Every structure is written in structure tokens, then in C-alpha cells.
């Protein structure tokens, strides 16, 4: 090793290292700015192109061959109904699975396999879920190219998100809460349902919202199922005027969703349709940003309020 006993030389080395420190810091800020600016450009581009198309009629008209009278009515109704199915399937199963893995599961090989498997599922490309739904739901189980098949496909896709959120929320509750409940004679399920689930509800809700926000924007699995892009009618209403008031006819109806409508408009050569795509994209981005924002806010509140 070179010995450095000259004070000047040491100062020079320190100065050099400090310079590198500064250079890297600037690089970091620049990298962050690239991400920020790209997002700004994306949003601004869509805003400029899409804003003039956004009107009440845009939300209340069906898609059309004439771009200036086309709207997203069937798309947003379809998205809402598909999300209903997704939430209905993914929430109980995801929470149940998370509770089992965190509270009930014995430490054995099966549990380990399930845990590794949940991680693996989160890494499977979304289009693969579409192929699964195409083979299993559409043909094997005979659901057809329906809202039910699409909702279930997206439910499988966001299941890992809900499971992981549930587990993390429950894990952060201290053991003393469980011990207190058991000491008062509560059974395991009473402990879970009266204490653990209520205390972790904000965390679980955050996970559900993030999962659903992802499902709203997913296009690939729904295209794979074979959803139609030109739907100029609404699925049958889930609420009826006569007994039993609720109908499940809409589950088997053909449908389209927001991202598919947008994809359809993007891939047309006419520029007027691309303006429609910008407007639909704007609605879609605002929807997902609002949901993600809500989740971030919930998490922030939670972190501030809960101190065990």
C-alpha cells in the first residue's frame, strides 16, 4: 500500500472523493427527474389530445364508427361489472388465504410450498392468466366470453397482491393482542375475527385497492379471453323491478372494458380515433391514480395513527 504522509496529498484524495459524492448525487436527482418528466409528458400529451373530447356525451354514448360521436358507455359499465366479480372472488379468498398462512398454518413442507407458490404466482405474466382463463373458464367450464370469465381471470391475477397485503397487515399486530384474547377464553377464530381482522383492516383495504387498480388497467388477459371490442349495448341490469329484484343474467353477457376500448382506438389509423383513445386513457389514468392515491393516503394515515 502506498503510504500517504503528505497532508496536501490526503486533502487532494478527500477532495476527489467528495467530488464523486456530489457527482453521484446529481446523477441521482437527474435519474429521478427522468422518471418524473416522462410521467409529466405522458399526462400532458394525453391531456392536450383527450381533453377536448371529454364531455358528458363521451360517457353516455356507445362506441361508433364515427369518431366524433363515439363514447365509452359500454366500456365503463363493463369495467364496473367486471371489477364487481373480481372483488367478490379475490377479496374473501385472498384474505382467507392470508389469514391461514399467517395464523393457522403449521410449519411444514406444504406451507412452505404454498408460500413459494404465492411468490411465483406474482411473477407469472398477466397474459398467462388470460390463457388459463381462455382454456378453463371460457371453454372447459363453459362460461363463454363473459363478464364472469373476465372477472375471475382478473381475480386470480390480483390474488397474490391481496394475500401478501393481508399477511403483512396481520403480521404487524403484536403477539400480546392474541395472548390477551386467548387468556379471556376466545377461540382462534374469535381472536382472528374480533381482533386481528379489524385491527389490520386498513392494511388489507390498501392491498385490495392496489390490486383492483391493477385489475382495472389490465388489458392482455381480457383480450386473450376474446372480449369483443365493438359493443353497442349494455349487459342486462343486475337490478330488476320485480321479485327477486337481483338478477345474475349480466354475468354471462358479452362485454368490453375501458383498456380494451382504448386499445381498439389506438390501433386504428384515423387520427380522430386516437384522440378518443387519449380521452379514454385520461379517464383510465385518473381512475387508477385516484385508487392508488387513496391507498397511499390510507397507508400514510395508518402509519401515523397506529402505535402499538
Amino acid at each position: 500500500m502506498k503510504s500517504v504522509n503528505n497532508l496536501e496529498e490526503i486533502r487532494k484524495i478527500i477532495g476527489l472523493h467528495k467530488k464523486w459524492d456530489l457527482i453521484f448525487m446529481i446523477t441521482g436527482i437527474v435519474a429521478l427527474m427522468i422518471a418524473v418528466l416522462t410521467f409529466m409528458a405522458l399526462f400532458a400529451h394525453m391531456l392536450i389530445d383527450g381533453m377536448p373530447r371529454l364531455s358528458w356525451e363521451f360517457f353516455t354514448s356507445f362506441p361508433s364508427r364515427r369518431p366524433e360521436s363515439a363514447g365509452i358507455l359500454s366500456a365503463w359499465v363493463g369495467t364496473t361489472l367486471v371489477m364487481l366479480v373480481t372483488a367478490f372472488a379475490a377479496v374473501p379468498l385472498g384474505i382467507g388465504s392470508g389469514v391461514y398462512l399467517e395464523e393457522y398454518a403449521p410449519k411444514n413442507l406444504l406451507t412452505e410450498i404454498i408460500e413459494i407458490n404465492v411468490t411465483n404466482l406474482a411473477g407469472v405474466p398477466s397474459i398467462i392468466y388470460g390463457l388459463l382463463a381462455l382454456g378453463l373458464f371460457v371453454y372447459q367450464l363453459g362460461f363463454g366470453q363473459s363478464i364472469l370469465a373476465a372477472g375471475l381471470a382478473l381475480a386470480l391475477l390480483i390474488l397474490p397482491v391481496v394475500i401478501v397485503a393481508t399477511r403483512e397487515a396481520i403480521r404487524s399486530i403484536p403477539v400480546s393482542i392474541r395472548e390477551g384474547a386467548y387468556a379471556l377464553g376466545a377461540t382462534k377464530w374469535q381472536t382472528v375475527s374480533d381482533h386481528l381482522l379489524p385491527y389490520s383492516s386498513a392494511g388489507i383495504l390498501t392491498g385490495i385497492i392496489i390490486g383492483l387498480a391493477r385489475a382495472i388497467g389490465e388489458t392482455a388477459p381480457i383480450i386473450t379471453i376474446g372480449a369483443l371490442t365493438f359493443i353497442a349495448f349494455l349487459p342486462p341490469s343486475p337490478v330488476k323491478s320485480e321479485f327477486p329484484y337481483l338478477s345474475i343474467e349480466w354475468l354471462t353477457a358479452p362485454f368490453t372494458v375501458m383498456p380494451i376500448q382504448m386499445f381498439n382506438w389506438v390501433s386504428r389509423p384515423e387520427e380522430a380515433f386516437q384522440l378518443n383513445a387519449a380521452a379514454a386513457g385520461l379517464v383510465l389514468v385518473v381512475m387508477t391514480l385516484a385508487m392508488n392515491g387513496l391507498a397511499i393516503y390510507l397507508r400514510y394515515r395508518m402509519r401515523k395513527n397506529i402505535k402499538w
Partner: protein
Amino acid sequence: MAEESRTKITHAGKLGYSFRRHMHERFIETFLFLSALLSIAIMLAIIVMLVKESLVFFQHVSIWQFVTDTQWTPLFDDAHYGIMPLVSGTIVSSLIALLVALPLGTIIAIYLSEFAPFTVREMAKPFLELLGGVPTVVYGYFALLFVTPLLQIIFPELPGFNLLSAGLVMGIMIIPYVSSMTEDAMRAVPMNLREGSYAMGATRFQTAIRVVMPAAFSGIAAAYILGISRAVGETMVVAIAAGMQPNLTWNPMEPAATITAYIVQVSLGDLPHGSIGYQTIFAAGLTLLLITLLFNIIGHVLRKRYREIY
């Protein structure tokens, strides 16, 4: 006196073994267990479905032809079934995306974890999360109608559909995944390691590069692997911006299809169930699953091998 002892007995009965209560607990536990088992069922269903349809496909087409043929034209009269054009498109677009996402994601993570003041971090993290929440079809729109025209100013001969702009946008899209996981891994490194390094006179940059990053290696590797499987499995950006024409090329300036884009293209048409065209998308899907699975296994091995325990 007799009455008092009777109430005692009923109380004891309530506290003792209750068949109904026991059954109730059992029933709930079974439901929870079944919902946990569902994840294994999904994985098995994916594998069974892909393998089953692919087996039918490989009765028509030999695996040798599938791997070596240089054309992919399953829907033409003169049908060729070589997966290479789709794989090359996937590799080129993923490589461009990773060249953007891995360096930028890592730099952002180091900056946020080691350099940034508290307020910057508190603002940047939610923002990056929002960036990761933007639907992929919107990124596709952005690549086709904003980035491609921009690139055409620099490279006038660039076609309207090309792998370059799809890859660049995909890279930007993956940054949040890489940066947030890398940052989590770096922040999990105990403070006393940093303090030791600072006490020796190291700067923040030296500490980050020589102390924190090696200590967080297994987490960073996991973040990179996640980024890679995102890039390989990404569908809408390439389907919109790279065109859907299978093309055996390594040139990012050309239009080409990826495995995922091909599946989208076939699904948009009206292929009858059970036809060879229908089976090709399952064979393509199986190839995709195997590629992502391979990366998952590599990630798992890296994590196991280089895990540092404090």
C-alpha cells in the same frame, strides 16, 4: 343451596368442551385452508392447461422444427412454426427495457436510500408508486404516439412501429418496480454497517457502493429478476408500439412481434376452439412461462446463496 350448585354446573358446562363451538372452528379452518390451497391449484391449472394444449400442438409440429425454423407464420397457407422470430423480438425489447430500467432504477434507489433528505424521499416514493400504477395500455399509447415521433426526429428512417420505442417506454415503466425493491433491500441493511464505514472516513457514495450494495445483494438480485420477468411478460406496450409482424431480427429499429404480442394478435381474431392456430398461443404461452420460470429459479438460487444475515 341446591340452586346455587346448579348454576355453577351450567357455567362449567359453558366453559368446557362445546361440540358446536368446536365444529364451527373446524369449519372455518377448513375454509381458510382451502383458500390457501387455491394458489397451488391455480399454478397446477396453468401448467396443465398450457401443457395439454401444447402437447396437441407438438403432435403436428416437431419440437425440433419449433426451435430451429426461422419463420413463424402459423396462420398462412404455407405455415411455418419456428418460435425464434418471436423469441428474438422478446429478447431485443426486453434488453432495451432493462438497459433503461436497471441502471436508472438502481441509481434512484441508491439516491433515495443513501442521499436524499427525508422530505424528498417521502415525496418521491408515492410518486414512483403512482408511476407503477399507470395501466400498460396507456404506456403503449405513449410509446406509439409520443416517443416514436420524437425518435423519428433523431432517426428519420425509423418506421412507425419499432422495438426501440416500445423497449424504452417499457424500461421507464419498470423503473418503479426495480427502484422500490432495491431501495427496500438497501434500507434493510443495518445502520451500524454504514456508521462503521463513515467512521473510517468513507463518503456516502463509497459507503453506498462498497458497503451497502454488497450487503443488500440478494435483495437487489431479486429486484433485477422481477424487472426481467416484467419485461419479458409485458404485452400491451409491444403489441401497440412494436407492430405485430413476426420478424427474426436483432435490430431494434425494425418492427417485430414478441411472444406476448403474438398471443394478443391471435386473440383479436376469431380462431375456432381446437384449431392449430388456437393451440399455437398455448405453445407460445408455455415458452413464455418457461422463460419467466427460469429467471425465477435463478433469482431463488442467487437469494439463497448470497443472503447475508445480520
